[in-house]
């Protein structure tokens, strides 16, 4: 039976991953996500799993690469500066068509930045975090419940499309406590090996050797693999976009926001509705693939959009592309670890409504 618990977002991810059959976590301490590593360090030895504190973020992602090569559900977690270091490994995972879960609990940047919440890795994650032409699946939770639910979704989508998947949370999501219904322990670790004929588990002298590799010295072959990968991305974009619509039926202003700012925005929308302003919200849940269709549809009837973000307007550009600049898009943003207040968002909505 599913149980309800009061947990931090970071812990919810860790427990959900275990219940999804993940038995291998490789990580390196960094604020504000270290609770994931601490939770795994406690739990994994009790269930015959592996918790390994790697010598670096680079080593951790490469341990994930090795583990994922064997078909196991492998994961790592970090925060923004650590993800920069993982970028090389993420590119190799993508180039070798390996599924794996990477959690990024974002903090302010660039450089060492700060340790307070941010959404400033948006471009870096949604455009393919690393060298070469590729994407990873990017999911943006806005509740502790979604932190748990999307952990399962990330594993499942990653395996379905054979690509790395990321939970892209802001620091608030990792640190806040909320009641969460944990997923049932429904995945047998042996089950996750099904449908992975590519895994390098040893030939047992029963099949030709498997090779996990991203090197193609012949340009026509490399082009072919890239094109095939982008066919999978096209399918992903067509079938897996997820978003939440909130009070959009009669909305004249459409707020677009994710994570903690989507929650602030919901309160601001409630206040604006009390004041008679017809405002709603589209909250992208998948950031790659980005839910362009509902935004394009909304553009046909709203007066304008307002993005509420913890960066300098990175998601705003995706909204512009989705609606093909057909309507004005205002922005209410704070950076560096600051979070806009409800009043700030209310003021921005009212300004846009005028």
């Amino acid at each position: 039976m599913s149980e309800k618990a009061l947990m931090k977002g970071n812990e919810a991810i860790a427990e959900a991953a275990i219940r999804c059959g993940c038995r291998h976590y490789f990580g390196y301490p960094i604020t504000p996500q270290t609770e994931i590593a601490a939770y795994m360090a406690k739990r994994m030895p009790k269930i015959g799993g592996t918790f390994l504190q790697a010598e670096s973020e680079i080593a951790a992602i490469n341990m994930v690469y090795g583990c994922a090569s064997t078909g196991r559900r492998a994961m790592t977690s970090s925060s923004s500066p650590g993800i920069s270091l993982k970028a090389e490994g993420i590119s190799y995972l993508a180039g070798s068509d390996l599924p794996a879960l990477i959690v990024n609990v974002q903090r302010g940047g660039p450089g060492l930045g700060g340790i307070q919440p941010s959404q400033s890795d948006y471009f870096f994650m949604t455009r393919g975090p690393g060298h070469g032409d590729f994407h990873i699946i990017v999911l943006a939770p806005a509740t502790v419940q979604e932190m748990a639910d999307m952990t399962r979704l990330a594993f499942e989508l990653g395996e379905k499309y054979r690509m790395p998947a990321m939970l892209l949370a802001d620091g608030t999501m990792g640190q806040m406590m909320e009641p969460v219904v944990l997923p049932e322990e429904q995945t047998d670790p042996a089950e996750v090996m099904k449908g992975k004929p590519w895994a390098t588990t040893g030939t047992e002298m029963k099949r030709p050797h498997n090779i996990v590799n991203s090197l193609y010295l012949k340009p026509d072959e490399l082009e072919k693999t890239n094109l095939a990968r982008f066919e999978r991305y096209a399918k992903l974009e067509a079938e897996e976009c997820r978003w939440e619509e909130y009070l959009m039926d009669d909305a004249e202003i459409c707020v677009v926001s994710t994570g903690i700012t989507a929650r602030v925005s919901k309160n601001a929308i409630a206040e604006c509705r009390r004041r008679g302003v017809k405002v709603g919200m589209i909250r992208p849940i998948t950031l790659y693939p980005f839910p362009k269709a509902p935004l394009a549809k909304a553009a046909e009837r709203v007066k304008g959009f307002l993005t509420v973000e913890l960066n300098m307007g990175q998601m705003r550009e995706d909204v512009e592309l989705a609606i093909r600049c057909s309507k004005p898009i205002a922005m209410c943003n704070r950076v560096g670890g600051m979070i806009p207040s409800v009043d700030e968002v209310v003021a921005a909505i009212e300004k846009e409504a005028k």
Partner: protein
Amino acid sequence: MAIVFQKPKSLTDAVLHYCPGCTHGIVHRLVAEAIDKLGVEGRTIGIAPVGCSVMAYDYFACDMIEASHGRAPAVATGVKRSLPDRVVFTYQGDGDLASIGLCETVSAACRGENITVIFINNAIYGMTGGQMAPTSLVGQVTQTSPYGRDPATQGMPIRICELLSSLDAPAYLARVAVNSVANVRKAGQAILKAFTNQVEGKGFSLVEVVSTCPTNWGLTPEKACQWVAEKMIPFYPLGVYKDKDAEAAKEAAK
């Protein structure tokens, strides 16, 4: 008619891309012979590096994974922790293992990961066309040390076996060479021991193989073997730098 010599079963039929006179082929063969002798091909997973042996995944018949530059010990760790009953080895050059991947090398050795590391030290970056390696000798002329390696600005060459022997965890560290028939035989024994250790669960085993690069050294294959004897081995003495079995036997004899 009796067969007295044949290709190891753990090598595929792929044609090696290595330059004439390069010793990678010999070391590939020694690794494959060890796998054959232990009868573990079907449960072995090899990790190829970035460098001249980048395409080793085509040459070994067991399952293979291509790692990013220097990260093979981390990748091997991920595999071994997932499949503890499998034999996991890395095959890495000096740039890969002793420069860009030094952190992964030392850390995997320090953790005592139960893996086998084959380390090819030929004192040069071969694949990129002959640049200075962390193991290039003092005075050695390369593309990036055109006036000869100068310790004042480019530091001294790194001795990996000696460096790792200060750690508690490694089970076996040995340096061998493949510049003569006698040395090839000894190298084969060391590589077999490094794989046997893993099968017996003894922990991290590394064999450093002093090798040649005739192409980038600008020497004939024969002269390259002489250069190993005259220049490389005096700086990189052959021998066993750590052997927990021998230490235990010594302890027991006290």
